[in-house]
């Protein structure tokens, strides 16, 4: 039977009504859950979406008296200022070189987990784990203080050791060339144990049958690591590595600001510390917001790229 156009319209309308009724019913059914959600949602909207609303000052000349909404639009002025800033490339280079250096220490956690996995004495293993996780719980300020104290030119034990071995005392914090090493290696010190946790648990998930089989085939311990243990934890490695790559431009400022001084400022000034210096210290709110937005957008692009690669090489992806 053929339906007329009018009949179609009527059915469409009633479906619409149905749908409205359905939505209303579902909303009514969920009200208790909405109340539970409310504190978190209100916080999210005010304190996390609020600043996103404020990001528009990157395209405006923000005046405190005029407010965020009332300030005048200036288009891409602040972005152009930022890109044509004489030290633009220096900042990018500093940011990238410190993060890439950090990324280069990525295998350390894996190697440590593999070494620990060879220790059969479980009490010794537990003790080692407990000791090596400990630095992870120190605050950034304390870690940086230890860096300054241990590397002290006059009485730091590291320099005492260097002198004992016949070397010359090194002014670690005064040499720009050593800044990234100090930054990255102190991070490695703090987190090597902690970063091995995931690999240790992945290693303990590998079937002993596989290990036994390799041993019977005549593989020694080193070959067992190469051919059984490492292939067994590759999925874990892939995910953690891509996550690390995803954060390549999001180098934090809190630790760098603590280690920064007049002698290393040339290499320790990175994009995030620049947003802090320009925004909070010099009060150039709009310019700082533009730099922050620029950095955030690059981060998102890197993350999407990384996610695309993950999807291609494995079944899992970040989102």
């Amino acid at each position, binding site marked *: 039977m053929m339906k007329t156009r009018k009949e179609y319209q009527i059915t469409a309308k009633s479906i619409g009504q149905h749908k409205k009724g359905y939505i209303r019913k579902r909303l009514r059914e969920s009200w208790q859950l909405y109340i539970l959600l409310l504190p978190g949602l209100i916080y999210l909207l005010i304190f996390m979406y609020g600043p996103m609303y404020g990001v528009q000052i990157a395209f405006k000349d923000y005046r405190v008296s005029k407010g965020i909404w009332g300030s005048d639009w200036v288009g891409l002025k602040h972005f152009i200022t930022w890109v044509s800033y004489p030290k633009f490339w220096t900042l990018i280079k500093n940011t990238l070189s410190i993060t890439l250096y950090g990324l280069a220490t990525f295998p350390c956690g894996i190697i440590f987990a593999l070494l620990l996995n060879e220790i059969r004495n479980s009490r010794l293993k537990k003790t080692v784990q407990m000791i090596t996780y400990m630095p992870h719980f120190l*605050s950034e300020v*304390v870690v940086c203080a230890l860096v300054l104290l241990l590397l002290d030119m006059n009485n730091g034990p590291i320099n005492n050791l260097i002198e004992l071995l016949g070397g010359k005392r090194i002014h670690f914090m005064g040499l720009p060339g050593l800044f990234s090493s100090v930054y990255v290696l102190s991070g490695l010190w703090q987190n090597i144990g902690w970063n091995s946790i995931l690999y240790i648990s992945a290693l303990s998930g590998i079937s002993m049958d596989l290990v036994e089989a390799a041993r019977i085939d005549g593989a020694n311990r080193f070959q067992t690591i190469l051919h059984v243990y490492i292939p067994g934890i590759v999925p874990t490695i892939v995910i953690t590595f891509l996550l690390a790559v995803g954060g390549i431009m999001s180098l934090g400022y809190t630790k760098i600001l*603590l280690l920064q001084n007049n002698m290393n400022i040339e290499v320790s000034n990175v994009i995030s510390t620049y947003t802090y210096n320009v925004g909070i210290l010099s009060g150039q709110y709009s310019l700082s917001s533009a730099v922050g937005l620029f950095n955030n957008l690059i981060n998102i692009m890197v993350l999407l790229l990384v996610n695309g690669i993950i999807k291609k090489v494995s079944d899992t992806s970040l989102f």
Partner: protein
Amino acid sequence: MNKKKRQISAGRRHVAAGDRLFLVIVYFAVFLITFCCVYPLYFTVIASFSDATDLYSGKVNLLPSGFHLDAYKEVLKNNSIWRGYANSIFYTVGGTAVNLFLTVPTAYALSRKRMFGRNFLMTLFVITMYFGGGLVPTYILYKNLHLTNTPWIMLISGGLSVYNVIVTRTYFQNSIPDGLYEASRIDGASEFLIFGKIFLPLSKPIIAVITLYYAAGHWSSYFGAMIYLANSKLHPLQLVLRKILILNESAIQNIEDAASQEAALSILQRMELSHVMKFALVFISSAPMIMIYPFVQKYFIKGVMVGALKE
């Protein structure tokens, strides 16, 4: 036949010898890494008890020189350290309470499939993990709300970590059987009742994990306080530490009337004392974390695992 057997056993012996060498290397490497991890902590402790002059001239390396409590005595005299300690405890306890109030019910609601608009709301939360306003817009917001330079900002800023919401939500979804929820629904229990009487008691492990993560975050951060709190009476311990340990402000109290004190110190003695006090300060400020750490480490480790498993 016999010859072949001998060959195999010779091969085995060869492997065993190689393994023994390999194990020696393994043990040596593990020992070296462990030593490197523990030495700075060990050095802090021995330095803090050592003779100030010996420490300052670099004579303390592996063993303490004497047993002196002067540094601790002097540190404990410093009011700003005590005040910082009290402030930090307040910010940590209060801030963590706010965190839990904002995180746990939200995670519960987002874990219920029957909540209408769940995917949309979830997306709203997840977006903030990748995109945010950034430093200055956040700063302006807090300023406009007149929260800067009040203690409340330390409880409110960073009030919600979407990462922790996801971890908690995953736990609610995967570790508590659906049947329990459905049965309670059929019995007519309200969502509030189910959340409070069934889910909360069953999720102690995950709540312990996120409580620790939040608390550790509050205890160790300095940056928020640095940009939001101008009034030094409100400063948390980490900011006081930064002043003394990083910016090299002397922790010796009452520099002005030092001369009037009975034991007036020379400039060199002052420098030596300030130096050893830094170690005492590191020890005093890190002791709570390091002391409770052995008891709670399994929860932290569990947190790493749960985080890795998310979806």
